[in-house]
């Protein structure tokens, strides 16, 4: 057998490494398609795949024809300076996000199955970087095309808009990769002087700051939209122009109306892309240790992501605040199971609480601003006075927070059966009834969501010194709404325990299945609410007909609705218990 690596000219070894990496990329692509086809061959897989494809197709169609086209027709075309400014802001924002992401992916990220194999293979680091850049750019291609299409519909010249935007999107991963390698190298050098830099903290803080800035820009301090009214002054600010200057060539290519304006900028963008790729591959940085850390870190994060929501992905801290979880639900078997879940929440408290407080704050801010805007426009149309407008705004804000907050926090936390799927063997062996295990597992999350939403509702009211009936009713109903949603969510999950993590194969199939399961959840939730609210509504109208005072009618109706909803929750918990009992551990062990 011939062995070139051993017997051939040694200097030539490095030149051939790319061939094997090209083969790997080709085989992986082929393998991903094959897996997709294998899964889609089953009847359920075929149905979910078709639904996913339909969903994606509808979205892309709306991008091409619907929303974007409609906007273009309605809105007058922006002047070139404004268009240039908006394009610069968009590109700068995307690059900034990519650089922030680079703080979390230090070195060269390679998946777990590749890293040991490729690092121990006769491949140069430049070849590995080139391979990684090619795969990342290939993945970005779809996003680049979509972004290009969206930009083309808003640009002065569609073709130039598309090309400029697409090249900008293909440059971003190169910059992100270069930054990841350089940040990692800088950290390595600095770590000799100081211990590891909290790069992830910088990234999180940066992300939060950007979110707050975006909300401030959208809603403004007065609640009125800020950007459209003050756009020219912002655009002409010397500081802003200086900050956005690096994005100028790409933005110029995107908004150009003629070839003379487009060609030089586009040529520069292409040359920059080529040079950036070359320079990134040629970086003289030994990123192996950083990459091993990053790869292990990503694998851990993906594993946690498969177990639950955003908050559940945090690392557990050994002794948060130096205390042990309290026995909030008694010291029996039920209390012990609930305490176990509570411990999971508290021991991930560092990340979770920060995340929840920030998310809750942003939600409260957004719902408040949105409800003020809506109340203001509604009041203007109906001609009501300012007092009524304020009450409308308060009620709207509370309702927004109740619905959006519950939905968001429940889907983010997920300290429930998703995080216990790998332990279902143990849970099923516990000498406790299915409904008790079900309720005990979801109770702490429901309690935490209730506390957070209640704080979000009551804190502004207490600060303003006016707690109204809205507030009390919302705080009373929230735990039942939360419990109903979490119970339905978990019962459906136990019946169909499928999870999807970004980057996994069979995206269309998962998208279709997720849509069906979400519809099922919404159907259950809608049914429960109708059953719960119908008696209350009937009672309210009956009491109004009987000339009871509105306050009395409202109170009685809400009390009945609360009681019926509580009964509905008990029914949902029972259904959840049945789903737990029917769970087949052999089917999915997580």
């Amino acid at each position: 057998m011939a062995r070139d690596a051993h017997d051939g000219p040694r200097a030539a070894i490095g030149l051939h490494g790319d061939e094997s990496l090209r083969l790997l990329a080709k085989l992986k692509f082929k393998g991903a398609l094959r897996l997709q086809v294998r899964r889609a061959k089953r009847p359920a897989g075929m149905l979910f795949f078709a639904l996913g494809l339909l969903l994606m197709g509808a979205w892309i169609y709306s991008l091409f024809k619907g929303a974007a086209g409609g906007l273009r027709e309605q809105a007058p075309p922006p002047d070139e300076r404004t268009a240039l400014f908006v394009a610069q802001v968009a590109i700068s924002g995307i690059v900034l996000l990519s650089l922030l992401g680079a703080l979390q992916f230090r070195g060269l990220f390679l998946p777990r199955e590749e890293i040991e194999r490729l690092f121990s293979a006769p491949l140069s680091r430049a070849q590995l970087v080139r391979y990684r850049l090619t795969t990342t750019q290939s993945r970005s291609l779809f996003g680049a095309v979509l972004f290009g299409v969206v930009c083309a519909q808003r640009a002065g010249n569609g073709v130039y808009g598309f090309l400029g935007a697409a090249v900008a999107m293909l440059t971003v991963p190169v910059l992100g990769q270069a930054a990841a390698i350089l940040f990692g190298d800088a950290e390595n050098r600095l770590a000799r002087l100081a211990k590891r830099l909290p790069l992830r903290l910088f990234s999180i803080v940066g992300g939060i700051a950007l979110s707050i800035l975006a909300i401030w820009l959208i809603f403004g301090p007065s609640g009125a939209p800020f950007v459209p009214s003050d756009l020219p002054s912002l655009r002409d600010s010397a500081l802003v122009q200086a900050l956005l200057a690096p994005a100028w060539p790409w933005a110029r290519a995107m908004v150009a109306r003629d070839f003379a304006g487009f060609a030089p900028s586009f040529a520069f963008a292409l040359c920059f892309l080529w040079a950036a790729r070359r320079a990134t591959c040629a970086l003289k940085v030994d990123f192996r240790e950083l990459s091993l850390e990053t790869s292990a870190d990503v694998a851990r994060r993906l594993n946690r992501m498969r177990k639950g929501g955003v908050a559940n992905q945090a690392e557990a801290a050994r002794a948060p605040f130096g205390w042990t979880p309290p026995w909030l639900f008694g010291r029996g078997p039920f209390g012990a199971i609930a305490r176990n879940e509570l411990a999971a929440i508290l021991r991930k408290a560092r990340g979770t609480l920060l995340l929840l407080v920030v998310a809750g704050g942003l939600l409260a801010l957004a719902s408040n601003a949105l409800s003020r805007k809506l109340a203001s426009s509604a009041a203007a149309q109906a001609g009501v006075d300012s007092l009524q407008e304020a009450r409308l705004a308060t009620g709207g804000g509370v309702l927004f927070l109740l619905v959006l907050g519950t939905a968001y926090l429940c889907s983010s936390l997920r300290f429930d059966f998703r995080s216990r799927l790998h332990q279902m063997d143990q849970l099923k062996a516990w000498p406790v009834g299915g409904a008790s295990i079900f309720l005990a597992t979801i109770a702490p999350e429901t309690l935490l969501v209730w506390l957070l939403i209640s704080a979000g509702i009551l804190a502004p009211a207490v600060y303003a010194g006016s707690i109204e009936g809205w507030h009390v009713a919302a705080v009373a109903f929230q735990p039942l709404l939360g419990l109903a949603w979490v119970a339905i969510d978990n019962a459906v999950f136990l019946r169909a325990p499928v999870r999807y993590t970004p980057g996994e194969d069979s995206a269309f199939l998962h998208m279709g299945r997720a849509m069906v399961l979400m519809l099922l959840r919404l159907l259950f939730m809608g049914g429960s609410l109708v059953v719960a609210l119908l008696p209350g509504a009937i009672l309210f109208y009956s009491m109004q007909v009987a000339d009871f005072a509105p306050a009395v009618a409202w109170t009685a109706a809400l009390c009945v609705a609360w009681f019926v909803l509580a009964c509905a929750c008990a029914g949902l918990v029972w259904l959840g218990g049945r789903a737990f009992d029917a769970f087949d551990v052999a089917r999915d062990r997580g």
Partner: protein
Amino acid sequence: MASGEPARQVRRAAGSRKLCAVNASQAPALEVLAFGKTYETHRAVHDLSFVVEPGEILGLVGPNGAGKTSTLRSIAGVLPVAEGRILVDGWDVALHEQQAKSRLAWIPDDPQPFDTLTVWEHMQFSAALYRVREWRPRAESLLVDFELSEKRDALGGELSRGMRQKLAFACAWLHEPRLLLMDEPLSGLDPRGIRAAKQSIQRRAQAGSAVVLSSHQLDLIEELAHRLLILDRGAKVFDGTLEEARARVAPGSSLEDIFFAITKDTKG
């Protein structure tokens, strides 16, 4: 082999830091010279030197955290070599990384196949990676040896732990490496797989490959290894044959007795 023995086959090129092999065919398959590895403040390995000749099987043993995996990963080029020198077949891993790597194969303790590639495509990729021509007959034969023929079209993600291990062996064997590095190679294998793997390791050694075998299964080391290297808390505490070890501890003692006696000595 005494520790700290100078690199016989290595000379320093005049006026440069570049090291090159004088005669690769006569060089030991592996030379580790004053190697050290530090993670932030933790010193995992320090001043480790040893040599493995072609055809030799070296058993690398030590308690958890002794630095075995760090050493193996550094030899394989997965971790950079910050202290000391490592030469594979005369090629310095730090300076002539690709030449050194083309001569070795690394099997980690939990090999991860590509989820979406079939068993056969793994062989195809390995052949391309190490530029093995006319690889198909050999790949077929390896699949038979490791009882993977029936799994030829199975995806990596569908394989059991033992099958993954067998696939890693088959891929590693394909380019007939001069140096084989294995970390807990038999974990997850069934009795038939264990026997096949042992025979295969012995055959590779007889064919001239050097093998470094790290394992907590002392009976495996006792059965296969020609020499023994015991590490404890990052340092070499014994390097020699089993007979030399017995002579040091007690005549007729098992490797388990030797292991406990030597590692206890260093703790005492």
